[in-house]
């Protein structure tokens, strides 16, 4: 298995490009949020590792990619303190309390997102329009609902395909740049940095159900918009397919992703819940853990078979 630091490096490259796009749309406020998130994550990680009497090495830098994922899931108008608290929660409560990166249970970014969503829902789900630059300390005056919210509630998506590809619509800073996210997904899959099975499963589950039970009359549009809204693509790449959480075998990971995709789509369809995929990814954590236990048992059984094979063959030869 590749060292975590190389996976982290690849992820950071993709996250940096998404951050660049977010900086282009939202200016210095996003940049400051991202920097605060990364620095807070490093501080929280190093302090908690010290308290746990653990050695710090380059692999521990993975906390910064989680921090950047958190920053990219937030609106550009988010309060810096809330962003920092989210990162502390993700790093300390959702990760290091359980033993850190060697004993991961939850995706820190997903847990941190839910923490903010449940405590500051309004701050989290109102967004500035793209190209509204507020500067470091300014506040965006006219916050709007996300394109996902409008689509969930009305079935309307008033953006051209080009705008959707470029991420030129209101929503979380980095989760709307569809073209960049697609490129990131392809790159990370080829570099084996994310679980292909989980990614493919989530996309297929969402697309299949968006086609079978469409949200709008046109089935093709239903599939298209269901994939680009509600952070489906972003979460499929950076949360559901996280190698630290997803089942190891690709076919198990596929079904894990498939069910997350299906459940989250139905949640959006029936309750118009925004960004349901992130909620589902946390709720499916026990499923991932259960599958990992199953994988381990299968591996042990296989090993036992391998050990018994020569003895059986020798017996047969003797007969």
């Amino acid at each position: 298995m590749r060292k975590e630091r190389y996976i982290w490096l690849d992820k950071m490259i993709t996250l940096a490009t998404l951050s660049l796009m977010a900086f282009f749309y939202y200016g210095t406020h996003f940049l400051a949020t991202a920097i605060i998130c990364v620095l807070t994550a490093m501080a929280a990680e190093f302090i908690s590792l010290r308290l746990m009497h653990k050695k710090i090495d380059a692999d521990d830098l993975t906390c910064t990619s989680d921090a950047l994922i958190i920053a990219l899931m937030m609106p550009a108008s988010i309060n810096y303190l809330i962003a920092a608290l989210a990162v502390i929660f993700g790093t300390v409560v959702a990760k290091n309390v359980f033993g850190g990166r060697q004993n991961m249970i939850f995706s820190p970014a997903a847990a941190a997102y839910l923490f903010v969503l449940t405590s500051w829902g309004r701050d989290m789900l109102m967004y500035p329009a793209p190209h509204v630059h507020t500067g470091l300390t300014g506040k965006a005056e006219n916050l709007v609902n996300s394109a996902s919210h409008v689509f969930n509630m009305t079935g309307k998506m008033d953006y051209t395909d080009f705008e959707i590809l470029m991420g030129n619509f209101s929503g979380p800073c980095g989760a709307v740049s569809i073209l960049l996210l697609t490129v990131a997904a392809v790159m990370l899959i080829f570099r084996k940095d994310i679980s292909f099975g989980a990614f493919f499963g989530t996309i297929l589950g969402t697309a299949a159900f968006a086609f079978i039970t469409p949200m709008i009359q046109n089935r093709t549009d239903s599939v298209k918009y269901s994939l680009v809204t509600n952070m489906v693509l972003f979460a499929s790449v950076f949360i559901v397919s996280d190698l630290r959480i997803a089942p190891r075998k690709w076919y198990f990971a596929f079904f894990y992703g498939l069910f997350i995709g299906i459940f989250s789509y139905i949640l959006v369809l029936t309750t118009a819940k925004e960004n349901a995929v992130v909620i589902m990814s946390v709720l499916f954590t026990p499923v991932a853990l259960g599958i990992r236990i199953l994988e381990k048992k299968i591996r042990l059984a296989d090993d036992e078979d391998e050990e018994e094979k020569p003895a059986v063959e020798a017996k047969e030869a003797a007969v």
Partner: protein
Amino acid sequence: MFIINDIIALLAANLILTQALGTSTMFIAASGRKNLIRTACVITLFTTVASAFTYFVDTLMPSSVRVYATLICYTLIIGVLYAFFLTVLYFFGKEKFNAYKKYIHISAFNCAVMGTLFTISEKAAADDSLRNTVTYFLKGLEAGAGFIVASLFLAAAFKKLNSEKVPASFRGYPAMLIYLGIISMAVYALK
């Protein structure tokens, strides 16, 4: 699609994750994966059967004494069931009795069972259409299913939560509480 929707609704109404009912019992039973699931199954038995009987208490008891006398009536119902289940188990053989009696001891008197009875009673008081034995029985079963789901959630992470990689002060119960808290947070976000 409707099944998935029902599963989500059932999860959102889970009594452990939303009202913390029965968490102490879960932790008492959390000495092993099997213990957890068996205890949850016995709790389901108690919530289901006891709920059906509480219907009679709720309908027959005069409202003037309800506030004070409900608890003692529910306690007596659970007490009778407790003795009854132990007796039934005894007839299955001494070995099985010795192996499984602890689950009945843990599962009888706790917030999980009593809380379920009070919750169902409260719901029925607010909505008259729920006042019938079948609904009480089904609601008890639904609550029990919630405990089984929560115990499966805990069982899946059991090894990781008790791993040596978890800091000593957080290993076991504290990690379980935080784990349940994060799952409960996701359930809350569903609403």
